């Protein structure tokens, strides 16, 4: 299919891509958990570059502006468990808001991105946050990411301001550079950690959950049925 099978970088993906149920393929034995993540933020803050750096470890100075929504997959290991990350990349243009917000519902985690060289994208963070609150399930996790930190000369948003805003919104915060590969992996790892913590927390607080199918988002379903009671 579209040549991706030659792309041997992510063997676990294959089975799932062939599966009819993209969200809940419990039959897929190649991973223990599947998390759906979403990258959002203003137009041209570097969402696509960031994702390419993480998933393909490649960087191009110019990616075609995303139309609608796109995705990549990466499988990570966490405590001997294979966690498949399905990362959805969204178009930042205002016009695509209605289309992209529809996808918020299934997401377990968000990377809210702004561009440290662009004041406007920073000012929009609050709005994006509101959007998450409105359209996602209440227990979705969010990490604030200030991208393009390599462009020190053009910086207009200081790290302190980013940190301050993150504290105010109750989010974790990272400054990153997709170009220089700074903190890219760390952001995803941290987000996965937070999601796992949240999952085990809800498992702890509610023992009945172990046997039940899902809490919060559907994506945990796969995890819960396969590894009930596991703290991730």
């Amino acid at each position, binding site marked *: 299919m579209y040549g991706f099978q030659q792309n041997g970088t992510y063997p676990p993906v294959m089975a799932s891509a062939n599966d009819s149920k993209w969200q809940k393929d419990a039959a897929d034995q190649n991973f223990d958990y599947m998390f759906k993540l979403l990258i959002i933020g203003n137009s041209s803050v570097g969402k696509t570059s960031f994702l390419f750096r993480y998933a393909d470890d490649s960087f191009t100075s110019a990616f075609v502006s995303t139309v609608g929504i796109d995705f990549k997959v990466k499988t990570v290991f966490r405590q001997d468990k294979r966690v498949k990350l399905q990362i959805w990349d969204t178009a930042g243009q205002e*016009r695509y808001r209605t289309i992209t917000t529809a996808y918020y519902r299934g997401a377990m985690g968000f990377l809210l991105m702004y561009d440290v060289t662009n004041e406007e994208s920073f000012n929009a963070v609050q709005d994006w946050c509101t959007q998450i609150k409105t359209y996602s399930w209440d227990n979705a996790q969010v990490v604030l990411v200030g991208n393009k930190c390599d462009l020190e000369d053009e910086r207009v948003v200081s790290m302190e301001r980013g940190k301050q805003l993150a504290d105010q919104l109750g989010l974790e915060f990272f400054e990153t550079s997709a170009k220089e590969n700074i903190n890219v992996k760390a952001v995803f790892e941290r987000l996965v950690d937070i999601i796992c913590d949240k999952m085990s927390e809800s498992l702890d607080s509610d023992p009945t*959950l172990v046997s039940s199918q899902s809490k919060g988002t559907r994506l945990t379903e796969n995890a819960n049925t396969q590894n009930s009671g596991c703290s991730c």
Partner: protein
Amino acid sequence: MVPEDDSEVFEITDFTTASDWERFIARFEEILHEWKLVNRGYLQPVKKGDFLNCNWEEKNDELTFADFKFKVTYMVLKTSSSGSKSGKETKEEENEEDQDEGTPTVFSDLMNMENDFPFRAHCLSRWYGLQEFLIISPASTTDAIDSESRSKLLLSSASIALNNTGCTIPVYVQVQQRWRKLYSGTAIVPGASVEFEMAHLKKIPQQYNHLAGLLDVFKSKLGCVYISMPPVSVSVRFTYILQEWIHCPWPQSPPDFSSFLECEVGCSDYGVLPFGACIDPISELNLSCTWPSLSEDMIVENHVYSDLDPLQAPQWSVKLQMTEDAQCLLGEYLREFLELSQHKETTDELLGHVLDETDKDQAGDITQALQRLTEPAVGYNIPTLGHVVSSATTKLKMKPDEAPIPGDILNGVLLFLFPDAKKSEKSESKEKETVEKSPRSLKLMEDLSKQLKSSPVNGLTHRLAICFCIVNHHHGGLRAVAHLWQEFVLEMRYRWENNYYITDVEHGQPNMKASILHQKLQMLNCCIERKIKRESLGYGHGKDLEHDPNPTDHADGSSRPLSPTYQRRPLSTSSRSQSPSSGSMGKRRYESLDISSSDEEFFECDTEQGEDEADGEDHESFADTASHKPDGRLAPIKDLKLLNSGEQVYIPITQEPAPMTEDMLEEHAEVLAKLGTSAEGTQLRARMQSACLLSDMESFKAANPNCILEDFVRWYSPRDYVLEELEGEDGEKVKTGTLSPRMKIPGNMWVEVWQSAKPIPARRQRRLFDDTKEAEKVLHFLASMKPGQVVLHMMPMLIHAAIVKVIENEDQDTENLKVLLDQIMNKAAKVTRSPLMDARKYEDLVRMIELAETVIARAKSLKTKFTSDLLDMSSAEEELQVFVNSLLRQPEVIVRGGPCGPAGSIIHKLFTAAQRASHMVLDEEEGEIKLEELQKPTSTVPDFPRPSAREYILRAMVPRPAPYSRVLPQKMYCVLVDDFRLAGAFSSDTTFQ
């Protein structure tokens, strides 16, 4: 194997355990050792209340005597202190073993008066006050030790084992049938043994029907050969049952079912779930009056006289007996409704035969039938939408007398669901009663709406679910549900075809936090909205104005009744005389309309369509540079001029992106995900999603002749137009702009789409959202559902409504109810959010809701029974409240102050009233017997009935078997209910016999 070893091994035959009997003893001893019950210190006496608060630990093993299998059970009370104390005592005992000090556990238990009448305990512990014991009983439930000699043999074997091991725990052998609970037992303690004997009779022998007789039995059993026998200590408990609650008949008045059948009730009755129990959830109150440890000299009870007046009892305690099935209405309704989900029949299978028959009827007959249906029996001027539709679509033809739901009821139901069909004056009169709600319940309800995946409270979907549940219960189950669903689907189709909004379903994109059924209705509303907009634009001004209900008026969700438009509809009540002709006319018109809209491929149609189309083709090749008449402008963008011509840039009117329901979105995402993660996949995904971009570009081109991609980007994605300040040759700063690098990538999506975009205004473009198709999809989704599926789809809303009902009725004082409610809400959130609609999960949920309902009903019932009106002192109100709450929480409650306390005096009053009432009907004879027994000559009717159970515990310290033997504890427990049971523990000295 090494040969040398072989020679050393020789066979050992253990001749010591030859017989079955010996093997039995040996095995029993083994078990005692395994369980570490031998050579162990004595346990501390049980503290007061430990029987109630602590748990029993049980150990089991098997034992055989010949081929007869036995089960050995060890029971021990796990007191909080037992763990640490026993360890310490073992040490102590090691030191003091020879001194033989301390009281054996069995002796201290027998004489311990702290737990004389435990509420909950093993019968052996109830009778003998034991905290640990062993039972040998037949392993199979059908076997029984029915001969005395066999039980004696077992018991003596056991006592040999006890003697051999030095185990001081009493051992019982269960004899006779299990249900008789007959045990005989023995215990061996240093220097003494205890025999446990039991008598069980079906009837109470007259001479032993009182304390005096029982004392005689006890004393004769002790064989008092010496003169100065110490007084016997006596504990007595009488239990009285109160079943008649004279002051307060069960307060729940079941809903007036007759009103439903006669259809005289207001519409609101279809939207209210019932709540509460049909039967008093509290069936009886047991009052236990206890006289703890009196001397036998102090009380007299014989066949002519009794000192044991309950009002004189020093201790009162109360427990409640709950009705097993209180027939809680809410639970019952929910359960019945959910059961329908198991049915697999389709609507056609259920209603087919009724429909077929009427199909043969002539058209005239149908309208007559419809007229009969629409007879204004309710007094409203109802247009009965469903029936109008049924004529228009020739789908639902049903003989009124064969329809599962009679016509007038159906009218009422439909009117309730669609109040906008009513005349305007009427809708004003129907005001929701607002019940005062506590902040807690308001908070809970708000949380509930957030957590559950259902629909807004009081919206159409919400009411629909409640209504279906009630219709199921009252109007004929599955067939009625199928009928009403079909009517509902027809109504939905009618509204779609005739441009009436579905009221009480909020407008806008389907809310993914709502249930799928609700999203579908929202989707249908979206379609109707688009259709209205499309038609109002398309059919021009004046041409079809009368058909145009002002879209903005409805779009804001106002509840403005649609009656004016409805009156123009065929078959409305005012024009019923001409209904046949106008009906068919109307139908034809709708059909033609339908055809035109479904064939219409474009965003909207225009009379000049052909002409413009040609225009568009002309311009095609010119693309960017062509000059044409600007079209589809929305508003100018401030300070933005076209780069080429310097003209004002206008924001075009654009098509709105297609609304999607959750299942559509999932499908869409699945398709996108299937393309994989390769570059080609990405490209394909972008192309698939470029329709919106193309449409916007075309609109932009139409609104801004002579525009270029840079102009578009400046509006659409401003950051992709990079401004640079360049210093000109003359030192003047010149601002020049250019597309961002990513927009300059050769052959990129944006450029590609821009090149292919023609200047076409949004209204003449191909529709991004095909409302006709989508509406038909929704209608098909609704119509193709089997009634069983309909039920499942309604469960989220119904559960939501049921929980709201529980919250409304919540009793703030009941602590465990809060916990239960939290559990219900958590579970409901999980179940409703699960993509799989699992009927079994809903069953669990319904059970939990029913439990909450029962708990609430109990609390209510109890509160009406113990009202403060019955109080003598108003100051004791708080005390009473504490009493009532603890009754709901604890299995048995001590009445503070006994008969003299505030709660006690109410209980007394309740009993007195019940006695008076019952004696009015009872014949003289029985009354006299009671009088005689209770010896209350002052009043004609005793305040209390005969005790339903009488328990006596007799204790004495008497030397046995000879007067010179050691003084040892002796105990006899007697319980007189209908049957008669004596359980005696008699110790005897084994040294000085």
